[in-house]
């Protein structure tokens, strides 16, 4: 695996970016700085994820603010798109082309010579596992194959920034696992991989950091545990402990100010604790275990995934809390 050298300032930067479609809000006052690795853009349908991605790639122009991708602007596509690949959500292709022709033709548009374009095309097609179908017309591909050929086209010129709008839609579980592994490999190679999804657990699995967006506003950003920590006061962290004497543990944790609730599991072998200070709780847990010889089967956060964080942030009615 080759590691990409950083281009420009090595970041994707949004400075107070707004986009309005006439009177309709696309995104509003977005300020972000995206570092290399996989960044998950999370939000329900219509929240502004695609608008944000299209703004990044220059398919849309911001009404206000400025966007810089590795120090480059979308005003100079001839420079920007040497470093950016974008697999959009549009399930559409130029008519009449085979998978191979689709990728090779646009590599030629990049300016690559015939032989080099051919080699790069095959490499990209192999990476997404479509070698056997490369000679067939894209129009005859399944939804999953179309997703993969779009991904191949986006990575074919070896970009430093990869933008992927709902890239896992239509993929079967096996293909999902393969594609996620590919994202990981690309990110480990130094790429910025910006992935959007409305399926929260999917993003949780693959992202190094997340941007939570709702109603056109960025409501949180960062690594998901960091975002969760910042919410401890308003939304105490839930920890599930499976052990042999949960009642003993419950009596000890109740003495602590930061513990809001402790509830025994119905089977009598588990304890659900809600605490405003997860670090102190874990220290206490260690002390109790050592002092009383508790046997711990497992300790797991019960609401620290992106799904829970998102629910806390937007509330049940989709409003920012």
């Amino acid at each position: 695996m080759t590691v990409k050298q950083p281009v420009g300032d090595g970041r994707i930067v949004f400075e107070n970016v707004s986009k309005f479609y006439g009177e309709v809000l696309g995104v509003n006052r977005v300020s972000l700085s995206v570092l290399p690795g996989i960044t998950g853009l999370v939000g329900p349908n219509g929240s502004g994820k695609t608008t944000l991605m299209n703004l990044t790639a220059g398919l849309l122009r911001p009404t206000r603010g400025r966007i810089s991708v590795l120090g480059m602007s979308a005003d100079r596509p001839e420079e920007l798109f040497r470093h950016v690949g974008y697999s959009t959500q549009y399930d559409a292709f130029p008519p009449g082309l085979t998978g191979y022709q689709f990728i090779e033709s646009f590599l030629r548009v990049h300016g690559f010579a015939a032989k080099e374009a051919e080699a790069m095309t095959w490499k990209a097609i192999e990476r997404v596992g479509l070698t056997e179908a490369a000679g067939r017309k894209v129009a005859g591909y399944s939804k999953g194959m179309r997703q993969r050929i779009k991904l191949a086209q986006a990575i074919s010129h070896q970009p430093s920034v990869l933008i992927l709008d709902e890239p896992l839609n239509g993929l079967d579980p096996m293909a999902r696992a393969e594609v996620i592994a590919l994202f990981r490999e690309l990110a480990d190679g130094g790429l910025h991989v910006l992935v959007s999804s409305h399926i929260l657990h999917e993003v949780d699995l693959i992202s190094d950091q997340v941007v939570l967006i709702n109603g056109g506003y960025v409501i949180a950003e960062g690594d998901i545990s960091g975002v969760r920590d910042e919410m401890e006061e308003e939304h105490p962290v839930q920890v599930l402990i499976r052990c042999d004497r949960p009642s003993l543990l419950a009596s000890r944790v109740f003495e602590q100010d930061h513990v809001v609730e402790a509830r025994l599991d119905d089977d009598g072998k588990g304890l659900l604790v809600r605490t405003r200070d997860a670090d102190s709780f874990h220290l206490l847990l260690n002390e109790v275990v050592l002092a009383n010889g508790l046997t711990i089967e497992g300790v797991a956060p019960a609401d620290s995934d992106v799904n829970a964080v998102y629910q806390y942030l937007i509330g049940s009615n989709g409003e920012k809390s």
Partner: protein
Amino acid sequence: MSDIVSAAAPARSGLPWALWKAQLLAVLRLELRKGFRRPWGLVLLALAPIFILVLRLLIPRAVDDPSDIAEATTFFAGVYQAFSLRIVIFLACVAVFGNLIRREVLDRSLHYYFLSPMRRELLVVGKYLTGLIVTFVLFGLATVGAFFLAYLPHESTAVQRFLFQGPGLGHLGAYLLVTFLACVGYGAVFLAFGFFFKSPALPALAFFGWEGIHFLLPPLLKKFSVIHYLQSLCPVPLDEGPIAMLSDAPSPWVAIPGVIVMAAVLIALSAWKIRTMEVSYEEE
């Protein structure tokens, strides 16, 4: 990226001409591959004047005097100027150039070009050249075919004399030049319509009307129609009837550069428009 770097190396002028040429050729290749695979509608349109001339061959006594070459010359001039130029080539240019960008927006595939490291102006030029090649090849061939069909019912010796010792080949060359300039001019107009109007059909219809009443326009307004310049280059003038407003035909030195400059201005406007164009298919 070795090849691309060498191609992108700036020439002495400081501009990457080699890269631009490679990208232009790639756009041409891709456009021809995806946009004109089965142009049956265009082929039928191109065959329409030929159909009229074949009918003339088939109808008994449609030709009064087979030794009278002037009759064929006048007949072809009428078919070419009244039908081929004003209707067939005009409609073909609406269909081809008006859809170069529009069709990709409706197909939701324009973004693939916009996500390529290419100046968008080059895309406009590449698409325009593709349209020009397709329309000129098709309607140039149709013009040549129709021209020879017009003379087919006439005596071969008279036809040979007209072609090789008379003005025949010069006429054919002039008609080909007019066909080319019609594709250049109308092509640029409808390319621009594709950028400036959501549905280019209505302005195209209005423009068709304008070109159609050209013979009624006062001399000053005639200068703002494409047909005024194209018609002046046709080797045989067409009688436009008793109500036509007469005016001096522009010389070829005005007509040819006039059409080319107008096309260049419209292409430049389209190129300016595409630089700030957004892709939001949802609004279509």
